[in-house]
């Protein structure tokens, strides 16, 4: 009798404006409001607004039987507050139904868990506070940026008081074990929810692919796959942009989302639960031991999407090395900028893996090449550093 555990990740970065070497020393306005608004308008129109409506309808229709979870980064909340308060309101309406759980994470969708535990904690606290203010909620479950995970990160997360954390369902970690059970972090009480990447990516990646043998995927077929699963939980975690942006409306993705609850609930053994319900219902079956960093990004599922080539490593080391200075300065505007510069997307844009083939890295990417991304970032950072003196 597995519980379906749906979780959608909502995020947009604060993109940098085109910043040349000639701007250094003259301009400390690093962010491109116009461009951010351009992407935000598109994502709100194509995804947030229609998807929120579909989900709210399902919640109302199934009278508390349809539940799911959201993570929403601080950077997207800020942008929605500024430009689309009514869209933020529609998220709030979903949370108010009591059928939607919220996850905490780093406010800036950052790689701060790789900077220091202190900085990581500070950004998580900031996010927690924001959720309290915006949604009146204090989450129990944690998701790190792009499901970044290691035993050490899990320990830090447990110390902050969270009960569970999200992790990619890595084959080499799970080995013979199934992702459809609750696990425990190594030497810890923290529960770990392993993403069922095969089933999740059927929706997130393959849904609109006409080369795929299962195309077109309809909710009844998908529900029948779910009904065949043995275990405690089916962890279907994905980016919220899956709906309307990765797969456009004309692929039938919203119909799929809207009819999935009904189709799944036709099976008596299936139900929807929030992650908190799942971990209180089920004891962990085993321990998850990941001594090195893993994530849900790309096929490598490690740090290489952000920290592989020399440009990425250099840019990250530079931003990381400023921690002491920033803590001494205590200038709130500079702190916010420093943290916005830690957002993982900036490093993702610098990725040279498969870049020439044109792949998912191009999505929402406003740079022509990873070299443009690095050059722009370093020009900004050079100016930022010069202002700390």
């Amino acid at each position, binding site marked *: 009798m597995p519980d379906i555990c749906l979780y959608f990740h909502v995020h947009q970065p604060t993109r940098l404006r085109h910043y*040349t*070497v*000639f701007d250094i020393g003259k301009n400390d306005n690093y962010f491109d409001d116009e461009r951010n608004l351009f992407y935000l308008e598109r994502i709100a129109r194509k995804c947030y607004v229609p998807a929120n409506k579909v989900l709210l309808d399902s919640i109302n229709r199934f009278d508390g039987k349809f539940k799911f979870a959201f993570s929403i980064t601080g950077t997207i909340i800020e942008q929605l507050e500024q430009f689309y308060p009514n869209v933020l309101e529609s998220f709030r309406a979903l949370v108010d139904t009591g059928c939607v759980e919220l996850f905490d994470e780093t406010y800036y969708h950052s790689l701060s868990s790789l900077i220091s535990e202190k900085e990581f904690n500070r950004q998580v606290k900031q996010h927690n506070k924001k959720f309290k203010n915006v949604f009146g909620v204090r989450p129990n479950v944690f998701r790190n940026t792009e499901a970044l995970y290691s035993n050490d990160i899990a320990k830090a997360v447990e110390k902050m008081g969270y009960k569970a954390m999200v992790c990619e369902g890595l084959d080499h970690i799970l080995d013979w074990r199934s992702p459809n059970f609750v696990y425990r972090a190594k030497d810890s009480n923290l529960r770990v929810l392993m993403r069922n990447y095969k089933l999740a990516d059927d929706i997130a990646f393959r849904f609109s692919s006409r080369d795929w043998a299962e195309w077109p995927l309809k909710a009844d077929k998908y529900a029948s796959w779910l009904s065949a699963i043995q275990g405690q939980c089916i962890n279907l975690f994905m980016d919220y942009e899956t709906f309307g942006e990765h797969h456009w409306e004309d692929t039938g993705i919203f119909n799929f989302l809207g009819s999935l609850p009904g189709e799944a609930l036709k099976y008596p053994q299936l139900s929807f639960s929030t992650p908190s319900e799942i971990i209180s219902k089920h004891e962990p079956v085993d321990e998850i031991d990941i001594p090195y960093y893993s994530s849900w990004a790309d096929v490598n599922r490690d740090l290489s999407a952000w920290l592989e*080539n*020399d*440009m990425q*490593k*250099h840019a990250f080391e530079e931003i990381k090395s400023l921690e002491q200075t920033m803590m001494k300065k205590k200038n709130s505007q500079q702190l916010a900028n420093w943290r916005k510069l830690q957002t993982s997307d900036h490093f993702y844009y610098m990725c*040279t893996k498969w*870049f*020439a083939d044109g792949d998912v890295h191009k999505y929402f990417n406003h740079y*022509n*090449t*990873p*070299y*443009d991304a*690095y*050059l722009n970032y*370093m*020009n900004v950072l050079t100016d930022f550093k010069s202002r700390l003196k």
Partner: protein
Amino acid sequence: MLGWEFPPFKSGGLGTHCYGLTKALSKKDTQITFLMPYTGMEINPGFMKVVQVGKSRTRFGSYAASTIVSGSGKKAESVYGNDFFAAVEAFTREAIEAAKEEEFDVIHAQDWMAFPAGIAIKKFSGKPLVVSIHSTEFDRTGNLAPNQWICDIEWRGLFEANRVITVSNFMKEQLATRYSVPREKISVVYNAIEAHQFANAACKEFGLDEKIVLFTGRLTVQKGPDYFLDAAAKVLKKNKKTRFVIVGSGYMLPQLINKAIGLGISDHVSFVGFQQNVEDYYKLASCYVMPSVSEPFGICALEAMCSNVPTIVSSNSGVKEVVKHCFVVDFWDVNEMANKIIGILKYAPLKHEMTKNGYHEASRINWGQIADETLKVYSMA
């Protein structure tokens, strides 16, 4: 095949292209006879028959140089003919006679100078004509003052040809819009280079504590050397230890020297003239810039990338369709050009990644693929 130049006699990319293509084609069991105007040099590549038609040395010339070079160098005076149009007409007459002695299945004419001959040979032999167009009159004149007589020949060749080969989609669009060539008649076959030639080039020393930013190409409006100087002035405001080396000659040289003086950067700009061994200069460079106003392909960018030089190419170029590990910039946006040059000089990881990935990408492009695609076009003609 009909062409205007062939190594060791060449003045630009066309000769290099003909060499690479014919060599790769002959490796694929293709018998080629190459007809070209008389040069006074011995040309025998060993893999095909080269017939130099006519007798007079003064008739030979490279179009781009001959119509515009006027006394800017002794070399130009002595080698390039003065009446270029008469030379094209003479080549046409003589090539027809030479072709009557040869057996062939396809006629392939390289650029407009060979088009009249190609058309005439098609008429008497009944064999299909393929024309390659490496640049148009619009490109060569920077869209400013195209010569109508040449445009007409280009149009006629494109019209008479059974198939048209061009070097990029950028060019294909130009041919479709400016010469009304049906898109389905045009095949895009990119350029390649002999990568090993550049990877092994010897390093030259300028002996200065300066980083070198390199421009190569004819000093004509098409290649945008003036934009290179504007960007240089902006770079030098931020970074004095930079030298801008300009390899190539052309009618703009005096005006460029004046411009460098006017910008107050003449101490940092070296005009080294036309050089046979450009690969030595690539080895010197920390950054290569191709700021062309209109560049049908831009083979120099591949050469630079194969020489481990981070490369900036004009957005009006064909080469950007085949390589991704380089910067692309609008030729007129000298601020951004300077920003990118400074970035490459300033941030070591940027130079390192562009060099490594650029080399890997450019050195994979080879003439074998180009020959295969060309043979495919022959079979369609």
